[in-house]
């Protein structure tokens, strides 16, 4: 029997090693796997690289930064309001920022999940973010090469999941979650609800179970 349901978030994150690259789903406050992040922060790993476009102030995520677990942040929007945490960490040399245009971040992640090592994009051409990147013209338009961004682990959030790992999402809480599921060597999916196998409409499954390793049910309030 295939059963990917893991009931304890603490167990789910137990194997995330120091130095791991962690893809964290969510955009602003929507679709952030906060219970998994809280469990990870509890373990206090070191030197993590976090790739995310979630609000850094989101529950769980903020704690990883505050407690010094993160060495590098890859994001299009690493700015936090009402706190200077990011600025303080960077100034102290404790955190490295890689600012990435949001579409490039998404496509780098998608590419990793799809087995594409690199691609060309027009975004950021002519800007400081294109410095040191390979430039190439196609049909008279200049593009830069960007490489795939895989994660050692993806922490994602979905509305429902079944024991095969099939997932459906809720509205704009989908955001980065499906592509991060594809790009993590290990994918841990926090879900608000477990669905009986066969009850999710096959036409409406957004993330087929092969991309998901563990499904961790957590009620919404946590």
């Amino acid at each position: 029997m295939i059963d990917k349901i893991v009931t304890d978030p603490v167990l789910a994150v137990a194997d995330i090693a120091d130095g791991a690259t962690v893809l964290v789903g969510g955009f602003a406050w929507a679709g952030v796997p906060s219970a998994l992040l809280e469990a990870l922060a509890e373990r206090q790993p070191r030197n993590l690289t976090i790739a995310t476009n979630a609000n850094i102030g989101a529950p769980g995520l903020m704690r990883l930064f505050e407690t010094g677990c993160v060495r590098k942040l890859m994001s299009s929007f690493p700015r936090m309001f009402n706190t200077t945490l990011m600025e303080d960490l960077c100034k102290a040399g404790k955190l490295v920022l890689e600012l990435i245009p949001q579409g490039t971040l998404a496509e780098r992640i998608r590419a990793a999940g799809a087995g594409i090592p690199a691609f060309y994009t027009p975004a950021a051409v002519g800007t400081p973010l294109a410095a040191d990147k390979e430039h190439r013209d196609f049909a008279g338009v200049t593009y830069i090469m960007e490489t795939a961004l895989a994660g050692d682990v993806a922490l994602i959030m979905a509305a429902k999941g079944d024991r095969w790992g099939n997932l459906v999402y809720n509205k704009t809480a989908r955001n980065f979650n499906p592509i991060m599921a594809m790009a993590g060597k290990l994918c841990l999916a926090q879900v608000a609800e477990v669905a009986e196998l066969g009850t999710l409409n096959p036409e409406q499954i957004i993330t087929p179970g092969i991309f998901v390793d563990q499904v961790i049910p957590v009620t919404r309030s946590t």
Partner: protein
Amino acid sequence: MSKPLSRMQIAWRVAQDIDNGCVVNLGAGMPTMVSDFLPAGREVMFHAENGILGIGPRAAKGKEDPDVINAGGQAVTLLPGGSYFHHADSFAMIRGGHIDIAVLGAYEVSAQGDLANWHLPDSNVTPAVGGAMDLAACAHRLFVMMDYCSRDGTPKILKQCTLPLTARRCVNSIYTDLAVVDVIADGLVVREIIEGLDLKTLQDKTGAPIRLADNWRILSAPDIS
């Protein structure tokens, strides 16, 4: 001289130039107000980077759904016919040329239509770019919404941007409190200017040469509170 347009009035003015049937992406902040002022009878699909197409009005107080937000994180609604999708699809829509108009704020715009809107190197604030570089590079038309000058009176429309660029040669039209300016191949053309403001006075507030369009008009907007 008539009063400079308020931010809401600038949003109203932008909305008048959005054609029926367009797919439009509104940047965070000031541009999100544009959707409130579409003329009656115009049907437009509003897109946001975080995977939503067919955005309706802002959610009413008490009716907010934390999972229905725009790219600025504000609670919005979805119109009948609207859809949700993941981030790679959302940016495929942008890079793939499926967005007709993007409306963004700006720190600076150059006479060639270069845009700078993401980084103030002299400030202590962490730079944040979001989807602006993708949108600026790939939307068919880019409208900028901003005050004509910065708060201390410094021109924001310049020969060359002094701040780090978002994209080169991407801005089509600049909507401001004092004038509407189009960026065309040979420079900046003032399409509309508020009543009582002459070109010379406007030129003094501009860091690059401007000229009046042959068919220029008075820039005005209804009283909106």
